[in-house]
Every structure is written in structure tokens, then in C-alpha cells.
């Protein structure tokens, strides 16, 4: 498989602060790849180093196999969609988009054709003559994307480009961006702190924390098989129970948690190791739904919160630990604080995290 962008042990220090810490990544051609993490995790710095707007303190960056570590932005085949778009306010939509083409000294007829084409692509035909300040938020967004795409970059870098839009528009643009990427086939590297956004759009996600990559995997895998406690907590919600591996064999795993024995299918650590057990609230069943589950206990409901389509219930297990369960509205009938209830989940939904 062709690799478009490769980072080898890349670090970036700002004075005493380590923004990016020995990050290695390989991003495949045509992939929609997201860098996901909380603010300050180093995701934007990583993106800016790929684009040549920042330079690594250590490590190498390769673009289609060529080392570009020290090459400035204007010598790289990458283009970026900036967080605040950075459209040139003194130029029209057409001139904004033509900016890169003019620098490459394309003939005017080619420029006109390409700009028109890309305006079609982002669904803004005939907007070339507009001034930037005449556009709506969503339209500016499209112009910024068009301005980058028209140069046919090897890689398109997107730095939280949807952050300034309101929720409804953001959701619409997510779908549109994904469809656009499909059509043009360019490699997209997308920086976001919004896990929902990353899960919907990405082929693969790198979850970053404190300058390091915690896990690189597909959306499904990240969600179902988080490898660290940070990933499990950052992506979706999770119940965490600290315990110790009591038994690990080909038939499955048993983790001892406060006297409870939690069944899982696999564990990253041998018997005796301290681990954290994680289970998603939507996998925790209550009442009759828990019948037959590999992990099944009784508990007492402490609190019930109505949230529209779903209901959340906090349950104290008889062994001590508390769990949050998320149920469909109709399955929640009869749940009331103080009631005794059966609690359970399948062994396959138990995720055992090292440490």
C-alpha cells in the first residue's frame, strides 16, 4: 500500500515545552486520516509540521517517500485548510482560489477553467466575483477548501475547519467533506478535538494525548477496542473498574475487581498484572435483558436520568463498584431509584486495558 505521509520519531519542543513527543505515523494514499485529541495534545503542531509551517526539533517527515523535514511550506505538495480559514480579505473568491495557480504561472485560461471546476465541486458555481465578506460561514468554508484543493495537493491538511460553524451546519459539512474526499481521492489529514466528527468521517484515527500517539486504528476498532484508558475515556463514555488479571487462557480471561470476577475475551497482560476493565454504558444491560450474560450481578439503582431517546441509570453493584448504564427509553420502564435490579454484559464487551 502506498504511503503518502510518514513521520519518523518526530518531536517538537517549544522552549522547555514538549508539544510533540516522538510521534511516528504512516498515512496511506487516499485515506481520510484524523488526528484526534484534547486541546494541547500536539495534534495541530503535528499537522503544521506536515505542512511545513513548523519544523521538528527531531525526527524526519517524508512526503511520498521524499524527506521534506526542513522544506518550507511553499516548497511542499501539501495544502492546508486553516482553522480560521485565513481567506485573503482583500481578494475576491476567484483570486483567493487562483492564488496558488498564479504562483505556478498557469496560463489564464487554465486558471479560469480550474477555478470554475473547483467552485462546481464545492457547490458554489458563479461565486468567483464575490468578495469574501459577502459570504456566509458555510460558503467561506467551501472557498477555503476549494482554494486548497485546486492546487491538486498530494495531501490536504485540515485544521479543525468546522470549528467555527454552528452544530447543524457542521453536521452537514461533515457529510459533504467525506463525500468530497471520496470524489477527489486525495489524502485528507484532519485535525479535530471532536470525537464524533472523527468517528463519522475517518478511515483511520490517531488519538493523541500529551504530545504522544496513544492509538492508531479504524473508527470501529478505536471505539470497540481502545488500547489505553485515555482512549477509552476520550472516545465515547466508559465505566472503568480497576482490578487484577486472575486467569488468562485460550478459553477467556477473568479479572478480579473488588471480589467480583469479570469475564473478558482477551487481555493485554498475563495473570497477576494490574489492569483496568472498561465497559461502555450502552453495553450494560439491566433487568431481564441481563439474563444469560457472561457477567451478571445484582445491584441497586441509585439514580435515573431521562435524556430523550435514552435513559441513563447509575447502579451500585452489591460488590461495591458503581456503573452507568444507558438504555433505550422503552427498556427503562419500571426503573426507579432504590429498586434492586440485575446488571450484566457480554464477555465480548469487556475491554481490558493494561495498567
Amino acid at each position: 500500500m502506498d504511503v503518502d505521509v510518514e513521520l519518523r520519531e518526530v518531536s517538537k519542543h517549544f522552549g522547555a515545552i514538549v508539544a510533540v513527543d516522538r510521534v511516528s505515523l504512516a498515512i496511506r494514499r487516499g485515506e481520510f486520516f484524523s488526528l484526534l485529541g484534547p486541546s494541547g495534545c500536539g495534534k495541530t503542531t503535528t499537522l503544521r509540521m506536515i505542512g511545513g509551517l513548523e519544523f521538528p526539533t527531531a525526527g524526519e517527515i517524508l512526503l511520498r517517500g521524499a524527506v521534506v523535514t526542513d522544506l518550507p511550506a511553499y516548497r511542499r505538495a501539501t495544502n492546508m485548510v486553516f482553522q480560521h480559514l485565513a481567506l485573503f480579505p482583500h481578494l475576491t473568491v476567484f483570486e483567493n482560489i487562483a492564488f496558488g495557480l498564479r504562483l505556478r504561472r498557469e496560463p489564464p485560461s487554465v486558471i479560469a477553467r480550474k477555478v470554475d471546476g473547483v467552485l462546481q465541486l464545492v457547490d458554489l458555481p458563479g461565486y468567483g466575483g464575490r468578495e469574501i465578506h459577502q459570504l456566509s460561514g458555510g460558503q467561506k468554508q467551501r472557498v477555503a477548501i476549494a482554494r486548497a484543493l485546486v492546487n491538486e495537493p498530494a495531501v490536504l491538511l485540515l485544521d479543525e475547519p468546522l470549528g467555527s460553524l454552528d452544530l447543524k451546519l457542521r453536521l452537514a459539512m461533515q457529510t459533504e467533506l467525506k463525500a468530497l474526499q471520496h470524489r477527489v481521492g486525495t489524502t485528507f489529514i484532519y485535525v479535530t478535538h471532536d470525537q464524533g466528527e472523527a468517528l463519522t468521517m475517518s478511515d483511520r484515527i490517531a488519538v493523541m494525548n500529551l504530545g504522544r500517539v496513544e492509538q492508531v486504528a479504524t473508527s470501529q476498532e478505536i471505539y470497540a477496542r481502545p488500547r489505553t484508558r485515555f482512549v477509552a475515556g476520550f472516545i465515547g463514555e466508559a465505566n472503568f473498574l480497576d482490578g487484577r488479571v486472575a486467569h488468562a487462557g485460550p478459553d477467556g480471561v477473568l479479572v478480579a475487581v473488588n471480589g467480583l470476577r469479570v469475564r473478558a475475551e482477551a487481555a493485554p497482560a498475563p495473570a497477576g498484572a494490574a489492569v483496568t476493565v472498561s465497559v461502555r454504558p450502552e453495553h450494560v444491560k439491566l433487568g431481564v435483558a441481563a439474563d444469560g450474560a457472561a457477567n451478571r450481578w445484582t445491584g441497586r439503582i441509585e439514580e435515573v436520568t431521562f435524556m430523550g431517546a435514552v435513559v441513563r441509570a447509575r447502579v451500585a453493584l452489591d460488590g461495591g463498584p458503581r456503573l452507568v448504564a444507558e438504555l433505550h427509553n422503552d427498556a427503562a420502564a419500571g426503573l426507579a431509584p432504590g429498586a434492586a435490579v440485575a446488571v450484566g454484559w457480554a464477555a465480548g464487551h469487556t475491554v481490558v486495558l493494561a495498567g
Partner: protein
Amino acid sequence: MRPGRDPVRLALLAFLWLVVAFMLAPIVFTLVFAFSDASYLIFPPPGYSLRWFAKLFEQRALFAAAINSLVVATAATLASLVVGTAAALGLVRYRFFGRELLRTLFLAPLIVPRIAFGVAMLIYAVVLRRFGGLDSLFLAHLMVTLPFAISILTAALVSADRSLEEAAADLGAPPLVTFWKVTLPQIRTGLAVSGFFAFIVSWDQVETSLFLVKTDNMTLPVAMFYYLQRQQDPVIAALSALLIGVAAVGAVIAVLTVNPRDLQRVLSAGGR
């Protein structure tokens, strides 16, 4: 109370009109005297004529001085814009050891009394055997205009959007192209304001020039200063009338092109 009837407000506005009258009085009466018929200072003028304008145009020395002033002011303005923009870029866009010290080094000439600097400049020029030339005059004026340019352009660059420059670089523009196509349009106002003030300050510079000029090679304000010491006939009033006319055109241009906010910032910063 309606604002229109508020007595305190009315008193304030009346006071403002008095201040406005005070500001305009010497300018208005200079214009009146320019058309006076008398050859000495008297009000009201016994009659009106254009003879002082006619006499003004015979004054070759004043004309030569005006040319000198124009040359020096233009050169000082252009140099402070070029050198000042580069310095402001260095100060704003990079982090390095000694940046604050450098800023102080650049702005210090603003607090030095001009006449003190003029004394030093003369001695320096004599030592270097450049006394009386337009080049030493140009350097002296540049020292006065450069701090302005640097302080105004620094402020302009700080408020310019850095990400636009990054976007240009990202789209393939090398540093000089980025500067020309993206940075420059953003600091246009700063350039206009600092250029405008650099020109005015140099054009109207007496104290710094006073000792640097030779009697046969003056700048206009110095020539006028010496003329006034010798005689006070309305030739200077006629010349003043012309200069006021030019200034009025300048004021109109300034009002039309410069944002009052920027103007205010410059004047508040001690635009001297």
C-alpha cells in the same frame, strides 16, 4: 433631561468652539496678511494686493530651500518606510534574545530633545567632513522619522493576521511574494500613516536642521526662520498662505484615506 438642552453639555460645546477658534485664528489671519498692501505688520491692512506673492516668486533662495526640503523629506520618508518595515518585521515576527533592548534602542531618539541632537549632529558632520550636505541632513531627519515608522508599523504588524501569511506560504508563495501580496496590503494604513507623518516631521524640521545647513543651502523652514529674524514683511505671510493651502490639501487627503482611529493612535503615541 434631553441631551440637547443639558446646560453642562452646551457649555462644553461652546468651549469647544472657542478652542476651535483659537486653533484657527493664527492660520486665518496669516491668510489675511498675505493679501495686505502694507509692507509692515498692521491690522487692519490699509489695502489689499497680490504684491507679496509677486515678491515671493522673486526669492530664489526660498525656492531652492523648498526644493531641498522636498528632496530631504522624500528621501527620509522612503528610507524610514523601508528600513522601518524591515525592522518592525524583525521585531514582531521573530523571538530572539535582546528583542526588548533593541526596541528601546530604536525608540530612544523620540525622547531626546531635537536641538540637543542637532548640536551632536553638527559636531559629527564636521568630524566626518560632511557638514552642509544634504546627506547629513537626510541622516539627521531619518533618525527623527525612523522611530515613528517603527512604532506605527510594529503596531500594524501585530494586528495583521499571521495566518494569512501562512496560508500564502502554504499555497506556494516564497517569503518575498508573501510579503508583497499578503503582508503589505494588510499594513497599508500603517504605511500611509507613518509615511505621512515622516514626511510632515521632516518637512517641518527646524531644530535638527538649524546647525546642519549652510546659509546658501537651506531647507525651507530654516530659511523662513532666518528670514523672520531679518525682516517681517508679508513675503513670509504669502509663503505661509501657499503652505497652508498645501496643508489643507494634505488634511483633506489624510481625512479621506486615513482612518481617524489610526490617526488618533499616532497622535496619542506622541507623534511629534
